[in-house]
């Protein structure tokens, strides 16, 4: 690897703007020949935007992309492919109902007199895949094979077509451990052949296993690029979750906040393929923060609590009384509220008015025949809009015209209107401007002071620390640690998230990652 230092791809000062949102802000990225370069960041950090610019799906609003030293401006992915940049996505986008061989040569079949030379295709496909250690019947339909094999076929096709750069966008998300190993063998082979490989994933251990360098993005900015042998998991987690907005830490001496009675408790609640059984109680006047990386099972835990996914094991009690929660209707009946992570998809009713969006959960709880009359609706919407400072020209306007922060407050108002016993907020500040951000954090603190029991999931550690009495940490779809008192600090949380995977660089002050108080089974 004598040419290891030569950059195949050199992107500098990349800017991409969507409306008022800067998806990428002066991002630099370079990829060397013969290296695997991991790209890390939480949702919305700008990973996929950067990839789409490198592969021609988006055009940058600023900055330059150089391929082997030559400045390029791709119109579309096809042009990027022709120039040497191939991409394989999580969802294999080949033709499942055609044979493996046809998929490999689709659009460039060897022909004679305008007819496809089927036998030559089969022979060449077999030869090609042999180089990837695959000995399969290439005349069988692609869908007959596992996702892992389909991924390798997609990689083979991309490398054949492009040959300089391979972008793997979350290729391992739906693979099991053996399949991941197989895929990584292929990645290492291609690396030794001098390809530059960009690897996007949520799995930190895989990054350390296969990648040489890592670039971390956060909120559209490049945070750092490091050689992986020189950093620890903790360093990487810290960089991913680091601080953007400063909050007052423990404004009211939260650590030892007096706890009221347990409002809700979940005992051994779990579901196969979702989250391992966990035990957690949330008390009156308490905020329990949930920390963990994307894909660690944070959202899945919230979905189980709210009955979006029905729990398979465990019991749930509200104020000491056992309740059954197998769907959101039962959860709402038990007085639970849930502000979901994807506001647009699961939260707002875009075409309905602000007022209707606020009263809808209460109306659903009251039932079909106890309709809130217009006066009651106006009163409720007015009261909660004032309490949460929702800025809308009119409560009759469709909620889709409100800013993200105001939409989030509308959903919060919707749940406050049912006078909840327990409120779950999943990433309440994502995609919200800084002003509204601080306001939501203040609102969470206020609701806690007023005696509500809250569970708040957030990727932003400083934020979690600012409002949580306790923090539970999720890793690999299980609740692995519960931190309280002085342990509720960014550094401790980072270490708990990084957990046992941590390398030699772990600071000696690291607490035991799982002390068993919160984790069950």
């Amino acid at each position: 690897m004598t040419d290891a230092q030569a950059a195949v791809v050199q992107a500098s000062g990349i800017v991409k703007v969507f409306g008022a949102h800067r998806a990428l802000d002066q991002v630099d990225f370079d990829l060397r020949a013969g290296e695997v370069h991991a790209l890390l960041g939480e949702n919305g950090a700008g990973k996929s935007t950067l990839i789409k610019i490198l592969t021609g799906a988006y055009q940058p609003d600023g900055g330059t992309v150089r391929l082997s030293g030559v400045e390029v401006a791709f119109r579309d992915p096809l042009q990027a492919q022709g120039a040497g940049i191939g991409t394989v996505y999580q969802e294999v986008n080949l033709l499942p109902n055609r044979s493996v061989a046809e998929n490999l040569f689709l659009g460039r079949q060897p022909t004679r007199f305008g007819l496809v030379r089927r036998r030559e295709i089969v022979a060449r496909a077999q030869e090609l895949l042999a180089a990837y250690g695959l000995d399969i019947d290439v005349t069988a339909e692609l869908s007959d094979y596992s996702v892992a094999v389909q991924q390798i076929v997609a990689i083979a096709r991309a490398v054949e077509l492009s040959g300089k750069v391979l972008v793997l966008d979350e290729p391992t998300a739906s693979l099991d451990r053996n399949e991941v190993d197989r895929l990584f063998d292929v990645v290492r082979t291609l690396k030794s052949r001098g390809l530059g490989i960009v690897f996007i994933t949520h799995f930190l251990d895989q990054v350390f296993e296969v990648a040489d360098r890592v670039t971390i993005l956060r909120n559209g900015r490049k945070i750092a690029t490091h050689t992986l042998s020189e950093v620890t998991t903790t360093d990487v987690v810290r960089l991913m979750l680091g601080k953007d907005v400063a909050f007052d830490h423990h404004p009211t001496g939260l650590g030892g906040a007096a706890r009221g009675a347990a409002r809700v408790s979940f005992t051994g609640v779990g579901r196969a393929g979702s989250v391992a059984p966990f035990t957690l109680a949330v008390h009156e006047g308490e905020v329990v923060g949930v920390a963990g990386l994307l894909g660690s099972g944070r959202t899945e835990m919230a979905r189980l609590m709210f009955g979006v996914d029905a729990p398979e094991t465990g019991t749930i009690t509200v104020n000491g009384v056992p309740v059954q929660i197998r769907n959101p209707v039962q959860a709402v009946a038990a007085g639970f509220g849930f502000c979901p992570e994807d506001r647009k998809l699961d939260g707002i009713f875009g075409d309905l008015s602000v007022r209707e969006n606020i009263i809808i959960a209460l109306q659903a709880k009251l039932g079909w025949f106890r309709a809130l009359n217009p006066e009651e609706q106006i009163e409720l919407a007015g009261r909660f809009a004032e309490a949460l400072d929702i800025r809308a020209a009119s409560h009759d306007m469709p909620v889709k015209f409100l800013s993200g922060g105001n939409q989030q407050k509308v959903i919060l108002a919707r749940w406050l209107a049912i006078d909840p016993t327990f409120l779950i907020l999943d990433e309440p500040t994502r995609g919200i401007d800084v002003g509204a951000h601080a306001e939501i954090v203040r609102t969470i603190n206020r609701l806690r002071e007023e005696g509500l029991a809250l569970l708040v999931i957030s990727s932003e550690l400083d934020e979690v620390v600012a409002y949580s009495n306790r923090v539970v940490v999720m890793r690999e779809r299980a609740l692995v640690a519960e931190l309280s008192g002085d342990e509720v600090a960014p550094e401790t949380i980072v270490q708990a998230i990084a957990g046992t995977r941590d390398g030699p660089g772990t600071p000696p002050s690291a607490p035991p990652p799982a002390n068993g108080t919160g984790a069950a089974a």
Partner: protein
Amino acid sequence: MTSPAPPRPGLPLRPVGQPPGPRPQPIWMRLARPQFIALAVVLLINWALFPGFFTITWQDGRLFGSLIDVLNRGAPVAILAIGMTAVIATKGVDLSVGAVMAIAGATAAVMVTSGLPAGLAVLAALGVGLACGLWNGLLVTALGIQPIIATLVLMVAGRGLAQLITEGSIVTFADPVLVFIGTGAVLGLPTPVAIALTLMALATLAVRRSALGLLIEAVGVNRSAARFAGIRAGVLLVLVYAFAGLCAAMAGLIVAGDIRGADANNAGLWLELDAILAVVIGGTSLMGGRFSIPMSVLGAIIIQAMNTGILISGFSPEFNLVVKSGVILIILVVQSPQAARLLRRPDRKTATASEGKA
């Protein structure tokens, strides 16, 4: 960010009014909707073609005239449109209503010709319609099949079912009750018109006085968010398809009573498309959400007014379809968001800016 410490949201505060919103529109603004204009234009053209168009006479205890005829002929589609409105509001569609009409008509006809009482036959026909609707609803909710496909099943199979019931022939009858449903008069109005207006009023009251209307709209706008908000979306969906089936059975009874027979092949043929059209002309979006049952009925009347106009003008029926599609195209273009934006552009710069941001 400015308010110092707002009071606790959970506790009742003094009732506060909402911020200044749009004032209620004056009557002439509401009547300026494209649907009202379209109806007025179509009626005026009919009047120009046939000067006696607006003449209504009282004879034998009932009203007669071209306008009454428009309402009478339009009643089956109007009734279908009432049921279709609720389905379309949930972002669904029901292609089977025409076939369900045939099934209901066949059921009633076969029952009265075999000597069963007419009341029972009517109840059975309505029950069969309801069952068909439930079937559609279950395919859509329990099996998660796309509505257009789920209801296509019954659209195709339904005619076969109706033919099985009539054993392939046109079953004629002279039962006075069924004939009354098709051709009688109530308080001077033709029975079909009376049924359609009553159903419209009842359905509108039912959805607007209860929470059903809002919840149906919520499911149509965002089914996932509806689930997260604790709305029983599945039950609501089954309910709207069942209601559409019930409406189709009523329309089927009217059509059968009108011709005094059940024609499994032709009863209600393609009427599902007219019903969908009526709903769309009425302003309910096929993307689900906001709906208005009376406006859908108005849509059905516009369609029938065009049909009647072309008939009385003496043009050939082929011409009918071309004119109809032309008028519909105009109405849809006027209603489209793009047109609304074009019309609004000069004075609503700020509104579009905030739209872009959202």
